[in-house]
């Protein structure tokens, strides 16, 4: 058999394998993608929360995208305490001013950044939140101060629609 002939045969087989592999890949993708959030889940837009009844020193918890969101109306003492903390004392340095646009209102995802439990309100060594699962302590700005959690609790996208209503998402 001449060398030319061998090459052509090799090319034919290689091309067949390659084209076949593309097809297998294209077939597998829908089977994987079907597990991603579907159109109705993605469309679940924002939640609007009426905060007119929340007095200073109170926290309410609302559900947004299946997760708890803490909305705390902080007292003047708490605001002062949060703003006094030095950045170098923090594991995940963030200014309280950046976390709470309106200092009176702290809106954050109530999910511990360690493994996803919901921290308890007004507990822990720093007057903020305490996660009972693995002992992470958060301060009154929701910043991690002690324990295994790597970062501060997340601030979702939100805005005040009017003075009484917060729109999350």
């Amino acid at each position: 058999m001449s060398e030319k002939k061998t090459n052509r045969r090799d090319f034919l087989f290689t091309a067949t394998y390659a084209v076949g592999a593309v097809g297998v890949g294209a077939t597998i993708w829908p089977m994987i993608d079907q597990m991603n959030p579907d159109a109705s889940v993605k469309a679940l837009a924002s939640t609007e929360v009426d905060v007119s009844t929340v007095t200073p020193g109170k926290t309410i918890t609302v559900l947004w995208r299946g997760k708890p969101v803490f909305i705390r109306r902080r007292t003047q003492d708490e605001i002062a305490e949060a703003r006094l903390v030095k950045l170098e004392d923090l594991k995940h340095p963030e200014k309280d001013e950046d976390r709470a646009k309106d200092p009176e209102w702290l809106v954050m995802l109530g999910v511990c950044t360690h493994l996803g439990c919901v921290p308890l309100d007004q507990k822990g060594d720093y007057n903020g939140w305490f996660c009972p699962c693995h002992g992470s302590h958060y301060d009154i700005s929701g910043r991690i101060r002690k324990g295994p959690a790597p970062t501060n609790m997340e601030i979702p996208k939100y805005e005040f629609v009017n003075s009484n209503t917060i729109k999350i998402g």
Partner: protein
Amino acid sequence: MSDHEYTPKSKFGKWFNDRLPLLTLANHLTDYPTPKNLNYWWTFGGILTFCLITQIVTGLVLAMHYIAHADMAFDSVEHIMRDVNYGWLIRYIHANGASMFFLAVYIHIFRSLFYGSYKAPREIIWIIGIIIYLLMMAAAFMGYVLPWGQMSFWGATVITNLFSAIPLVGEGIVTWLWGGYSVDNPTLTRFFTLHYLIPFLILGLVVLHIWALHIPGNNNPVGIDIKKPSKDTVPFHPYIVIKDGFALLMFMIVFAFFVFYTPNILGHADNYIEADPLVTPAHIVPEWYLLPFYAILRSVPDKLLGVVAMLSAIFILAALPWLDTSKIRSAVFRPLYRQFYWILVADVLILGYVGAMPAEGLYLLVARIATAYYFLHFLVILPVLGFKERTLPLPLSITEPVLGGSPNLAAAKKKVSLNS
């Protein structure tokens, strides 16, 4: 199983294979000596494996989104069709896949009938095949109930009511099947469970089916025993693999056409209406692949006997290796059987047609004649034919000429090549 001892080349391979001989199995499967004169009708075994895997994979995906509850099943199917990523594609593949599965299995069965593949020493392969076919019908029926449309509901009602034909205990069995006094949520959830289970039973039986096949080896269009391995055989890989692959791709083109361009043509419009226990659709028709049996059921004017006739029509197939008394396998060398074979094919197609039509007037008469002929074929024609028929002389091997150089050789050869 293997005709020669296999030793893996690598040290690790040998170590592993001594403990679990997977490599020996793989070697057996790739080297498996296959008759080289197999025609394309023999590719449907591979196609059926593809169908089963496709149904299992798409079915698993659908089960991730489907909700087996009478109040939510229909909604969840619409959710799959509209919102789930590629949900419409996966559901249409699954729904049309059932039809393609049956199309392939019917070709597979009729190939076996033509070439006498059910005869000794392959009776066990055949009987396992019939069990698989029965389980397929059960799975298809229960799967059709899951979308909880009008045909789902009324199909389930009608089919489960077949059991009420059993004397004395019939009514009790039906209530037990339903888990209530009508087809309702308990029925749906148990059908879902069983629909999920059956494909895996089929998968296990397919392994046995192939195992039983690999003991005597494949039958072939000439129907004579061959030595293996010999110059009459080729190793399964790559010869049969590539040929099966080619046929599978042709099959997939047809499949894709259904899925992408006429995804609902094989279904029934009424199944897009949510189940309503107060309204029965004008015509209750099973899926096309069950129509011949439905015609047999309706052609008998007695409830119990109708059910008996329908079940006998299926179970009679299991006795086929003993009903067919001819020692010659392939219809190529059986001129009379060949004609009766095609009459049977036509008979089953006619049964399918009248099964879709209202059971009245001429349709009913035709259904009765066709039913009678169906049983006549298996119970009278086949046993008698084995003794009476003058068969053509068989060749010595699939590559060598007939002993004595019969004048019929040319005709026989031509017939074989026509079928390839």
